[in-house]
């Protein structure tokens, strides 16, 4: 064995990869031996279809496996441990009861192809959720199937295309403000439509003149986010709807910012025809390091028949069923019926809060954003005037010290705060969304920290340039990562192995 002290792992050293821990013969799973005659693979499957050896997966014992993933968990910011003012992502508290609900065996053990009679509780829950989401949207019906916000956008655009087709039209253009989420234009492309950007005014709202100029008989829809990505409710929403509808197009709402208007205003009431929700934003389902989310889509009366198949319906006798017989449907958009486990959490959240609780969510979310903005006045530039919805933009006035918004963001990590969304939809901005679930003490601590960092930028800019210093790693060579992509671990070359060489140990910072 080596006596080189550099090879003794330090407590703060990055965990080796699973593959570097592989110990032939180890296994963390035990299964009963076969209680039926063992079938030789080659006796039932032609030899040329069989592998000679099993795939080279790592072999690890149970405790080492547990330590590995627990150590990884500790190298991660999360809502449960950190404040996460990440604009446009609504990183609110994920209630524990939702996890308990989703983990109930009566939900987790259902096979998706069981008969409707065996899954009445599940169908009933989902039908009630559909109804609730339709009411919150002020629209007629909802599909729960889309797997994520972008998948909802795609589904919504397909519904819009189907509606135009049913009227004998194929329209090719979709308008979206230049501040739209990047998925909006990408979803248009996936649906074979051209995305046309619409200018925004200096006050952050849609430029109605530009909209009038660009809308025409080829326009299938306008996609809008309201409140918009600058955190502003567009007070001209009625005019926008009128212009869009006047051209025979439909108004689509990206529901990313629904957390600002629950029970306050309903998209259907301000002219929206089709919208998607992000239940992982508005309805508290956890983000899981990037997923699963869910992007249910709501539609105005007249578009229900196009919703994806199957659709959950309530029969006259009070039972629930999957309706597969939908001749006008856009078809299937995914395997089976949806991100059910995520939808159960959203259901539990809505049931817990009720109508008053949901409105309270939006009121407090908007209050928290405007409060933090008020605390930061005088320390940062504000590209837009308030009052804000649930989020707002600031621009650090720090460029004379060579400090950028990225430096401010990275410095926040040193204080245990997840950086806000950066550099979008306005250059050099930070987009701050505190959410309704934070305490006043946390909001104050955040404001104080940002002000402290603004002062540091003037007096000790190096602290920002070199941040983070208190994270598991310092800044990364992201350019190098993209230039020469290394997207997987590979076993060392055999000759290296015979020489007894392994992957070099992680270098320890000696400063």
């Amino acid at each position: 064995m080596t006596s080189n002290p550099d090879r003794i792992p330090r407590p703060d050293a990055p965990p080796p990869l699973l593959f570097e821990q592989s110990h032939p013969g180890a296994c963390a799973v035990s299964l009963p031996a076969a209680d039926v005659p063992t079938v030789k693979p080659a006796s039932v499957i032609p030899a040329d279809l069989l592998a000679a050896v099993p795939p080279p997966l790592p072999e690890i014992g149970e405790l080492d496996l547990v330590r590995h993933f627990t150590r990884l968990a500790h190298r991660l910011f999360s809502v449960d441990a950190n404040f996460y003012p990440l604009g446009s992502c609504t990183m609110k508290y994920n209630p524990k009861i939702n996890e308990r609900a989703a983990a109930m065996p009566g939900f987790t053990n259902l096979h998706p192809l069981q008969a409707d009679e065996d899954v009445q509780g599940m169908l009933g829950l989902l039908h009630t959720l559909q109804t609730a989401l339709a009411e919150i949207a002020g629209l007629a019906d909802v599909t729960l199937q889309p797997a994520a916000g972008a998948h909802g956008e795609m589904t919504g655009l397909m519904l819009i295309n189907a509606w135009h087709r049913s009227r004998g039209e194929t329209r090719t253009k979709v308008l979206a403000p230049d501040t739209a989420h990047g998925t909006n234009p990408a979803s248009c492309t996936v649906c074979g439509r051209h995305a046309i950007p619409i200018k925004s005014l200096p006050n952050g709202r849609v430029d109605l003149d530009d909209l009038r100029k660009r809308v025409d008989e080829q326009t299938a829809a306008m996609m809008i986010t309201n409140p918009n990505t600058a955190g502003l409710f567009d007070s001209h929403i009625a005019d926008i709807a009128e212009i869009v509808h006047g051209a025979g197009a439909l108004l689509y709402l990206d529901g990313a910012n629904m957390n600002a208007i629950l029970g306050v205003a309903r998209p259907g009431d301000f002219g929206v025809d089709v919208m998607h929700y992000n239940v992982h934003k508005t309805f508290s389902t956890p983000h899981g390091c990037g997923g699963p989310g869910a992007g249910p889509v709501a539609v105005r009366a007249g578009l229900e028949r196009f919703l994806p198949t199957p659709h959950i319906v309530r029969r006259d006798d009070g039972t629930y069923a999957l309706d597969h017989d939908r001749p006008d449907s856009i078809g299937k958009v995914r395997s089976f019926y949806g991100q059910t486990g995520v939808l159960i959490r959203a259901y539990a959240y809505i049931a817990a809060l009720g109508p008053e609780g949901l409105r309270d969510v939006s009121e407090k979310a908007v209050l928290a954003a405007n409060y933090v903005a008020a605390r930061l006045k005088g320390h940062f530039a504000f590209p837009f005037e308030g009052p804000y919805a649930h989020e707002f933009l600031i621009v650090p006035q720090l460029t004379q010290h060579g400090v950028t918004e990225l430096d401010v963001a990275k410095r926040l990590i040193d204080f245990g705060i997840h950086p806000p969304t950066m550099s979008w939809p306005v250059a050099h901005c930070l987009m701050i969304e505190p959410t309704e679930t934070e305490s006043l003490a946390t909001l104050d601590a955040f404001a104080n920290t940002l002000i402290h960092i603004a002062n540091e930028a003037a007096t000790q800019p190096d602290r920002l340039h070199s941040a983070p210093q208190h994270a598991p790693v310092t800044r990364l060579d992201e350019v190098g990562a993209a230039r020469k992509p290394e997207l997987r671990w590979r076993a060392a070359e055999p000759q290296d192995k015979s020489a007894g060489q392994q992957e070099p140990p992680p270098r320890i910072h000696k400063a």
Partner: protein
Amino acid sequence: MQYTQLTDNDVRQMLDRIGIESIDALFQNVPKRARLDRPLCLPAAMTEPELIAHLGALAGANHGCDELTCFLGGGAYDHFIPTVVDALAGQSEFVTAYTPYQAEASQGALQAFFEYQTLICQLTGMDVSNASLYDGATATAEAALMARGANGRRRLIVSGGVHPDTRRVLETYLRELPMELEIIETPTGLTDPGVLRKACSDETTAVVVQSPNFFGCVESLERLAAVTHDAGAPLIASVDPIACGLLKLPGACGVDIAVGEGQPLGIPLGWGGPYLGFMAVREAFMRKLPGRLVGATRDTNGRRSFCLTLQTREQHIRRERATSNVCTNQGLLALRATIYLSAVGRTGIANVASLCLSKAHYAAERIAALDRFELAFAAPFFKEFVVRTRKDVGKVLQHARQHGILAGVALGRWHEALRDCFLVAVTEKRTRAQIDALVAALKEA
């Protein structure tokens, strides 16, 4: 219940600081006529004990695979999930973290996804994997779009052995684009390379097959790849990740894009979701891959570290020129698959596959020996097979259900020619006694 922590006193203090009288003033930009002037019409709020009881009642109104014996497959399988998967993936840091854009604050998730990508490559024999997609069907559709993006061809050829729901998802995705879809029928249960050759042309975007396919039959990916490549097109193969413990890996068969449903890798049945779509490709497709990719790099101190990479493919930079609109992965499910695959390891995956093979063949032999039952196809199969019966399929399945057995998936809904057939899946979890009970129930029916 409420999850906000701001007291009335806090609210007062905050309003004072903002300099307004009431929260209402913050909504001044919402025009009067756009405002809702009544409470939402929703059931009243529940307290925690009420909610637990209510959810318990809904869960209790279902009859799941803990209560019944499950021989259902068709894309979702009742495999054993080791306890460590729930215990580790349930750690709240993983559950409540965001997409790891901020690498310094997200090394744990990034390393797990890098390990996931590696494991999927090892499992499929492919060069590069993304960090996962929504599910098996959408992964297949994304593969088709990627192939179109690469070669600009307009005719997608799809084997009749591909899951019918996946074919429908393909139809939905392709309807909006100038693309056609051609189905190759599979009367023997297998894709005929000769028929495929006739269908292929220089307009073929890609060929999509599944193995083991929807009928459980094991395709010869090698032969299908050869035919596909002769037309200058890539082969997209949807594979069962558990079968990779036994069958020749897609990468060794010449598959260009391997996709599949990752649910068997430690993900609960959960009535169809959330599941996991995996996608792994040959090196040549690396920069065309949809979804997230994690790469290894170094930090300023030279330490190995990980970050999201090749993001210039993605929507927030390319917008309408992005190769796909997918902007997440199924993070927590990819983590479950990572834990599952490293828990079973090299010998474990082979063992699970071998148990499935033995038990499925035991069941198939016993069922085929029954009067008025036979196997619909002679082709080799892995853990799933089609049974044809001269009894009424609906009544047979209903009879088994009365005995607490989910005997199979009736195929009439998807295939008119198979309305006298049902699909039976046998995982490593099924015991001989359960299989014998299934056989007895079918016999009595």
